[in-house]
C-alpha cells in the first residue's frame, strides 16, 4: 500500500506575525516545526505500512529549508520525502495549497491512501485535507480517530464527532485527516536519525509537477483574510416537551417562525 502523508511547516512560536499587506503568515526568520497534528498523520502512515507493508512518502509545500523538517520524518519511519518549493507557490491559501499538493500527488503517482493532520495550528482552517480530496476526485473522511480496517481498495474508520463517532467505509484511494486521539507518535530512533541524515529529499517546482501558475500561490488564492478570531460558541438549547407528534408540530412552527425554512420544506410540512 502506498501512503502519502501531507505535512505543513508551522512557526514554533505562538506569536505568529502577519504580513499586513497580504494578511498571510510571515514564515521567514522563525523556527519552524512540523505542524503537531501532522505528526499523528506521519505516525499513522508508518503504522499502516508496518502492519500491511508498502511505502510511505511525506509531501509538503514550502520554502527550501523545509527539507530539513522532512528529513526528520524519515527518522520516524517515513521512506521518501517530496517538497514542492517554488516562488510560484508563495502566498497560497487553502485552495491553492490543495491544488499544488494534488498536482504533487499526481506527480508521485501510484497512491492508495493520503493522510493529513486534522488542521494546521497556525491557520486552523482544516480545509486542505478535504480540498485535496476534491481536487483528486477521491473520497475523504475528516477527524479520523481510529482505523478499524484497511486493505487493498478499502478502509473503514471512525470519524470523531462532538458527541461520539461515526463509522465510515470508503473505497481507496481516499484521503483521511486524523485527530490526536488516533495514536501516540514515536520518538526517532538512532538508526532512523542516521538514515535521515543521509536521506535525499526530492524538491519539485511548479513546472516539475505541471501546475498551472494561475492556480498557485497568491494568484490562485481567492481567500481574503479580513480578520482572524476565535468564534464564540454560545448555543442556547430549548427542550420541547410533549408527545412525539406534539413535539414535531411545535418544532416545525418554531422553525417556520424563525424563517429558516425554504419554500420546498414548507411544502413537505
Amino acid at each position, binding site marked *: 500500500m502506498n501512503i502519502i502523508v501531507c505535512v505543513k511547516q508551522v512557526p514554533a512560536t505562538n506569536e505568529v506575525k502577519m504580513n499586513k499587506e497580504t494578511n498571510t503568515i510571515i514564515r521567514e526568520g522563525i523556527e519552524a516545526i512540523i505542524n503537531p497534528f501532522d505528526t499523528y498523520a506521519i505516525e499513522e502512515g508508518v503504522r499502516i505500512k508496518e502492519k500491511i507493508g508498502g511505502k510511505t512518502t511525506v509531501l509538503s509545500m514550502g520554502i527550501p529549508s523545509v527539507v530539513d523538517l522532512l528529513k526528520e520524518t524519515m527518522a520516524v519511519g517515513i521512506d521518501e520525502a517530496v517538497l514542492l518549493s517554488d516562488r510560484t507557490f508563495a502566498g497560497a491559501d487553502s485552495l491553492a495549497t490543495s491544488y499544488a499538493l494534488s498536482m504533487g500527488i499526481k506527480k508521485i503517482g501510484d497512491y492508495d491512501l493520503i493522510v493529513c493532520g486534522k488542521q494546521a495550528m497556525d491557520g486552523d482552517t482544516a480545509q486542505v485535507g478535504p480540498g485535496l480530496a476534491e481536487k483528486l476526485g477521491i473520497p475523504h473522511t475528516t477527524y479520523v480517530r481510529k482505523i478499524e480496517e484497511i486493505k487493498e481498495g478499502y478502509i473503514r474508520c471512525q470519524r470523531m464527532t462532538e458527541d461520539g463517532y461515526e463509522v465510515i467505509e470508503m473505497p481507496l484511494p481516499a484521503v483521511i485527516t486524523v485527530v490526536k486521539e488516533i495514536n501516540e507518535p*514515536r520518538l*526517532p*530512533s*538512532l538508526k532512523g*536519525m542516521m538514515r535521515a*541524515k543521509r536521506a535525499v529529499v526530492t524538491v519539485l517546482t511548479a513546472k516539475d509537477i505541471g501546475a498551472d501558475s494561475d492556480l498557485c500561490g497568491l494568484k490562485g488564492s481567492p481567500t481574503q483574510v479580513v480578520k482572524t478570531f476565535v468564534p464564540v460558541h454560545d448555543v442556547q438549547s430549548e427542550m420541547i416537551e410533549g408527545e412525539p407528534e406534539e413535539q414535531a408540530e411545535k418544532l416545525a412552527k418554531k422553525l417556520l417562525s424563525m424563517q429558516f425554512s425554504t419554500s420546498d420544506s414548507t411544502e413537505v410540512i
Partner: protein
Amino acid sequence: MNYYLTEEQQMIKELAAKIADEKIKPVALKYDEEGTFPHDIVKILADSDLFGVYIGEEYGGFGGGIFEMALVVEELSRACGGISLAFAASGLGAFPIILYGTEEHKQKYLPDIASGAKLAAFGLTEANAGSDAAGIQTTAVLDGDEYVLNGTKQWITNGGEAEIYTVIACTNRAKGARGFSAFIVEKGTPGFSFGKKENKMGIRASVTSELVFEDCRIPKENLLSREGMGFIVAMKTLDRTRPGVAAQALGIAQGAFDEALKYSGERVQFNKPISSFQAIQHMLADMAIQIEAARCLVYQTCRLVDSGEKSISKESAMSKVFASDTAMKVTIDAVQVMGGYGYMKEYPVEKMMRDAKITQIYEGTNQIQRNVIALELIKGLKTKK
C-alpha cells in the same frame, strides 16, 4: 562550552535529551515514590537504539565507546539518575563481555544487549566484599563440563530485571586476588535466583537486588578470559565504566542546576526575583563552574579511555570523584537556592540530592578512588627515579 562532538555524538546526545525531557521527566517523581522499575522507559530506550551506542557494529551496535555511553547517561540523568541507571548498569554488565568475551560470547550476548531486548548486570559486591573486593565468598567449582556456583551477591543493579549477568566468583581461594574468575550467568539458569530487593535513599527507580547461587551449574564455556583473571576483568571493566558513573553524577548536577536557575528567575522576594541577589548569583556561578569543570574532565577521560590508552585508572578515578563530589555539592546548593520549595517533593531537586549521594559511594567509594589516584601518583614518582 562547545566540546566539538562528532555529528554522531551530537545526534546521540540530542536523542537522549529528547527522551529525558519528553518521556522521563514526567514520570521521574512517580518512579521515585513507587520505587518500581521503569519498564516503559527501558522499552523507549530500546526502540531508540541507544543501548547499542557503545557496542560494535558487527554486533548490531553503533561502534561507539564509553564517550557515547556517557553522553546518553548524562542526558538521561538530567531527568532521573535512577532511570538512567537501568541503561548504565547494562553497560557495566556488557563491558566484561566486550573486553574479555570470546567471539562466541560476543555473538551470543551482545546483539541482544545492543538492541535493548535484554539488559545486562554486573555482580561483584557481596556482604563482606565492598571496597575490599578480595573478600568475595561466592565460589565456582569446575565439575566436568560445568562450573558450579554457590554464594550470594549483594546490591546488584538491574538484579532480577537483567537477563545476562557477569559475575565474579572465587575459583581458587589459595591464590588470593589471582584466585577469582569471571563468568556469564543467564537468568533462568537452575540454582540462580534473586533475593532481597533493597529500599534505597535515592536512585529508587533503579532495582538493586541480591543474586543467589545455590548449586547453579553453568557451561564451562561461560568463563570469561581464563581462571584467575576475575579480579583483572573486574578492575579493567570498572576503570572503563567509571566515567559512566561520573556522567550520571554530571547529569544529576546539571538537572538540579537547571531547576535552581529557573526558580531563581521566577521566585520574587523583596519585590525582586531572587536571581538579582548577589548571594544567589554567586551560588549559581559556583554551581555552573563546577559542572563545566566536571564535564571537561569527564568528556576528556572518556576520550582517553576510548583512545585505547592502557593506563587509565588514575584519570578514570579522578573523573568519578570530581563529578560525584560536584553532584553532591550542586544538588545541596540547588535545594538551598530553592529554599523551602527545594525541600519539598513537589520540586525535583529534593530527589536529585538523594540520587546524587550514591555516585560518591558505588563503583568504588570516593575514598577508594583517592587511594587509587594516590597510588598511581606515587608509582609515577618511583618510575621517574
